[in-house]
């Protein structure tokens, strides 16, 4: 038995590799989580009444964990799609690092934990909204819309739009016009943001049989839809300026940011594929990068107005 070594021990486990801690963290989609944390934090901080720092911290922590749980459930269900596409093939489940069953178990347990803890820490309205968000992302978007319709991004974007509403509800225990408009801002921003990316990323969605707008309706129609959704986004973004949570900083930021974003969407619509190929999709890339800044600065401006009011 002297030749029984650690190496042979590993070989017996071929096909059932042991995941590292980082692989489980990757299941929670930490990059998506950062947007959730920021928007939920702003929703929580601008809400009237306020809460203690510890309760606020706990609320954000479990909202983020709930988002992570829905990410794990998404990775469990979409493992077949992820394995086909180059961008997602290295995710823990398709890469064979974490068994699909473990991703499902982790997702379900973290969902339950985050909802219960948010309910105990704050209130059950916020907890119910978090539970609905997880359900919406994991079931409505991942299991149904993503494979069924090219409008998956539009409707599925609601899942990413809920965090500020949950942050707000964690403090106030209700949903108000201001929190609905914060929801609307992210909801209407998601399609132009994602479709701008889809125009230059040329992902292999068709290989995975995922109906993306660029494939089902063509790239010219995608350009038109970017402009339509950006036009619809502007009144939502400006409307938020006239609620109690916003102030002069937000109004000024919203006017400038929406003018630039609208100009970008207009430029995308005016171009065709031949023009885009020539400059390597420079305009599409610029608009996509700006869209990230657009959302960050809108919520940053809300935060600035909240701080302004306190000072």
């Amino acid at each position, binding site marked *: 038995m002297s030749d029984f070594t*650690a*190496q042979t021990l*590993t070989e017996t486990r071929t096909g059932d590799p042991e995941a590292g801690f980082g692989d489980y963290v990757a299941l929670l989609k930490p990059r998506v989580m950062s947007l959730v944390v920021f928007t939920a934090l702003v929703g929580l901080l601008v809400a009237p009444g306020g809460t*203690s720092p510890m309760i606020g911290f706990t609320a954000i922590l479990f909202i983020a964990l709930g988002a992570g749980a829905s990410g794990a459930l998404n990775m469990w269900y979409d493992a077949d799609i992820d394995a086909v596409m180059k961008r997602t093939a290295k995710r823990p489940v398709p890469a064979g690092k974490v068994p699909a069953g473990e991703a499902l178990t982790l997702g379900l347990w973290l969902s339950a934990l985050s909802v219960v803890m948010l309910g105990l820490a704050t209130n059950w309205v916020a907890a119910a909204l978090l539970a609905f968000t997880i359900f919406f992302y994991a079931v409505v978007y991942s299991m149904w819309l993503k494979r069924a319709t090219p409008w998956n991004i539009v409707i599925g974007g609601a899942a990413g739009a809920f965090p500020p509403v949950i942050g707000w509800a964690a403090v106030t225990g209700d949903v108000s016009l201001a929190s609905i408009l914060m929801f609307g801002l992210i909801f209407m921003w998601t399609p132009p943001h994602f479709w701008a990316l889809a125009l230059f990323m040329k992902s292999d969605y068709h290989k995975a049989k995922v109906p993306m707008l660029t494939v089902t309706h063509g790239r010219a129609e995608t350009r038109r839809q970017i402009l339509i959704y950006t036009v619809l986004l502007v009144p939502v973004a400006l409307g938020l300026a006239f609620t109690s949570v916003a102030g002069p900083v937000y109004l000024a930021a919203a006017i400038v940011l929406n003018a630039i974003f609208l100009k970008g969407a207009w430029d995308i619509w005016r171009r065709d594929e031949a023009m885009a190929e020539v400059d390597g999709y420079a305009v599409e890339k610029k608009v996509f990068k700006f869209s990230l800044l657009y959302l960050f600065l809108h919520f940053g401006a809300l935060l600035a107005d909240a701080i302004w009011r306190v000072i």
Partner: protein
Amino acid sequence: MAETTRPLTETHEIHKRRFGRNVGTALCLLGFCAVVFGLTIAKVREGGLLEANDHVPRASVLPVTEDSQ
């Protein structure tokens, strides 16, 4: 082909990964305990609605009388 073998006492990469996972899990559990503890302290300090049983009639359930006003 000569088989390369290593002694059982040598730490294999899989052991390092397993150790990392155990440390990560332990830190998560410790963090969770700290959050629950901190939350408890915050809730008790907030405690406007707390009314523990201390063997005296609870003021909030007593009928309003002239004396109590």
